[in-house]
């Protein structure tokens, strides 16, 4: 391996063959089979139902503080996750419940962390924004906008250092792209050919400020261009398009070609957090996305039209998913609060 920076003499970037410059891709369809389609559907549905329940529990006062829901963006994480394997690491911001479920973390442990109980992934000490699973290679849940980007780049650095063949999926929102540290990370990733995919989830608004009002660069998939990083814009409401782009980006990284940018055009139906009155966008805009671009509804049409499943079958699946979520919600309320003695544990790793 060679994590080391390459001197100008050893490598002229200008001469380096890149797979492809930044581009927009249409809704490239994968040749996903019926079982895969159904898997995507179920995974997206689990996130949707989980988040709806979380929103309800927040409203009941069972979840405190901040709670950022992922409803509307499910296709992004499900499409990406389907393209990676157990070697690969995932890190994201505070809108993280969907990523954790997609990584295979137990809905019970996630929901119990939201309620601040001992059965939560962080024993109740992290909350909605701070959950981790070493077992599932999920590295958080980070609350400072953009901070997960150098961290994700470090996960890629470790993969290259240890020669694991692993790739780091580093998610960030459109609101994070102009953070200085994001650009610092892009520079090092390309300089050292690190296997990291920067998945920009462009849901159009960083809290209440639209991309148009916050970013001089509007085509976020091109943000890696100054560093020589290929990028692609993807319909993030279409799980198949996401998966096709993900597969390509993962291959690019695994082949040792360095980092990749994917801009996912997506949308969050709910506010930035639970207490967002959403005055910065129109109801018509939200309704149009829900009614005409919903990733779950659209995939259900594809599945039913293909004839592999009926609407009744999908409804049955919805019931199963709902039961999992209800079970998680019950666990999250029954699990006891952390023991008071936990206040002082885990500050340091005990030797």
């Amino acid at each position: 391996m060679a994590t080391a920076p390459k001197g100008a003499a050893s490598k002229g970037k200008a001469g380096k063959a890149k797979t492809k410059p930044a581009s927009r891709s249409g809704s490239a369809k994968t040749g996903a089979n019926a079982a895969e389609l159904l898997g995507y559907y179920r995974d997206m549905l689990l996130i949707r139902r989980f988040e709806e329940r979380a929103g309800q529990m927040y409203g009941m006062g069972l979840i405190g503080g901040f709670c950022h829901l992922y409803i509307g963006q499910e296709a992004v994480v499900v499409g990406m996750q389907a393209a990676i394997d157990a070697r690969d690491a995932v890190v994201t911001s505070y809108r993280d419940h969907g990523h954790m479920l997609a990584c295979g973390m137990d809905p019970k442990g996630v929901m119990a962390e939201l309620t601040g109980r001992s059965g939560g992934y962080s024993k109740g000490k992290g909350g909605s924004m701070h959950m981790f699973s070493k077992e599932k290679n999920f590295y958080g849940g980070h609350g400072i906008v953009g901070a997960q980007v150098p961290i994700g780049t470090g996960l890629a650095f470790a993969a290259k250092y240890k020669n694991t063949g692993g790739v780091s999926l580093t998610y960030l929102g459109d609101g994070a792209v102009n953070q200085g540290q994001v650009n610092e990370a892009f520079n090092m990733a390309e300089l050292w050919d690190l296997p990291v995919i920067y998945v920009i989830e462009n849901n159009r608004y960083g809290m209440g400020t639209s991309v148009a009002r916050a970013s001089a660069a509007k085509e976020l998939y091109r943000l890696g261009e100054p560093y020589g990083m290929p990028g692609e814009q993807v319909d993030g409401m279409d799980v198949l398009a996401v998966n096709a782009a993900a597969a390509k980006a993962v291959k690019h990284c695994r082949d040792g070609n360095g980092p990749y940018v994917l801009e996912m055009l997506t949308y969050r139906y709910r506010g930035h957090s639970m207490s967002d009155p959403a005055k910065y966008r129109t109801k018509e805009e939200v309704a149009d996305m829900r009614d005409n671009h919903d990733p779950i509804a659209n995939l259900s049409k594809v599945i039913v039209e293909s004839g592999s499943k009926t609407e009744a079958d999908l409804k049955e699946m919805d019931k199963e998913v709902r039961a999992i979520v209800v079970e998680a919600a019950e666990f999250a309320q029954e699990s006891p609060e952390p023991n008071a003695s936990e206040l002082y544990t885990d500050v340091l790793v005990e030797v």
Partner: protein
Amino acid sequence: MPINILMPALSPTMTEGNLAKWHKNEGDAVSAGDVIAEIETDKATMEVEAVDEGVLGKIVISEGSEHVKVNAVIGVLLEEGENTGDIGDAAPAAAPEPAAETTVEEAAPAAAVSAPAAKPVTAEKEFTGPTTSTTVRDALRDAMAEEMRADENVFLMGEEVGQYQGAYKVSEGLLDEFGEMRVIDTPITEHGFTGLSVGAAFAGLKPIVEFMTFNFAMQAMDHLINSAAKTNYMSGGQMGCPAVFRGPNGAAARVGAQHSQCYASWYAHVPGLYVLAPYTAADAKGLLKSAIRDPNPVIFLENEMLYGQSFDVPDDDDWTVPIGKAKVVREGSDVTLTAFSIMVGHALAAAEELSKEGIEAEVIDLRTLRPLDTETIVNSVKKTNRIVSVEEGWPVAGMGSEIAAIMMEEAFDWLDAPLKRVCAVDVPLPYAANLEKLALPQLADVVAAAKAVCYAD
């Protein structure tokens, strides 16, 4: 069983609101995610979405109602196969208690839990074998080289650590021995490479990050505090950060205010970090080795003026100095002088001056600033009954302030005089040679403070 639809809270502080509008009528079918109502507070209007599927069986609270309590039943949803006959008396009492109230009640027992006793620190081994006179610079390099030989997951990154051989030559020769994969020159982007090193540490590597000076680490403060120090706690103990962040700290010579600051108390404030600031070459080596081996993030504060000073260092690759243990470097009976890093030299020189006047000072090299070795300081004060804290940083909320507080809490009855602090004066460090000298603690300041607490002026 019919499902009660409850008045939701928009935020943890909301207790009541207005039910502005129903978007569904009794008898309407409802799917999960459908907007069924709108509620408003003085701050915002929010849509209420259905979480379950069914038919809106009954509207309990009509639209336009004001001051509706959070968690009151506002409607009832019928599931498949149910009808309005299944609706009993909608019982707002069945709604769960708002979480806010229980939190207040339960806060008391949690607060009553006392902090665990400090973990006993492994006693320092008395080294009796052969030693070699070594500079602090070489001792630091040897520590890194030995640990890199012993553990291939240890690597060094920072500005100019490789081809340039270190801005202060601390990493001299490491690139030649360990190669480009383990001695990595970074771009001048402290925020980015510090975050990168934290990610690498989460994934099991053991980074040593060199800051050209700790002044530049302010660019990386967010990752040092929010990412490195807090993640183990926030993850319930799953994700430690075995990284060492090291480099020169404090004033050098005539480099001006932005390059001359002591960050000791900044980092010592933060749970989840170890903060080390050695004086001798032996401690620099022994503590850096302990820091690299430790699974926690360590802030390792060096001093440019000390790099070229030589001290005897044990000839033993396995010799380490425990984190968390101060050292009495001169015994005395009349006054205790605490110091760290370059100020230990001042304290020792002051002790010699004081001795000529019949005052025997006990000098403690703190070495570790977090966790502070309170026991060693208190034991010394029990003997001397007087104490002076010496540091190069500013006085306000400095290490001396912390030691003063410890004296109040743990040694009040043993004190014969109030503690005195010797610090930098409370201004940005000036460039002019005469002003710089006036701003930084001098030998005479330490002597004067010691005599003052001994009432020997």
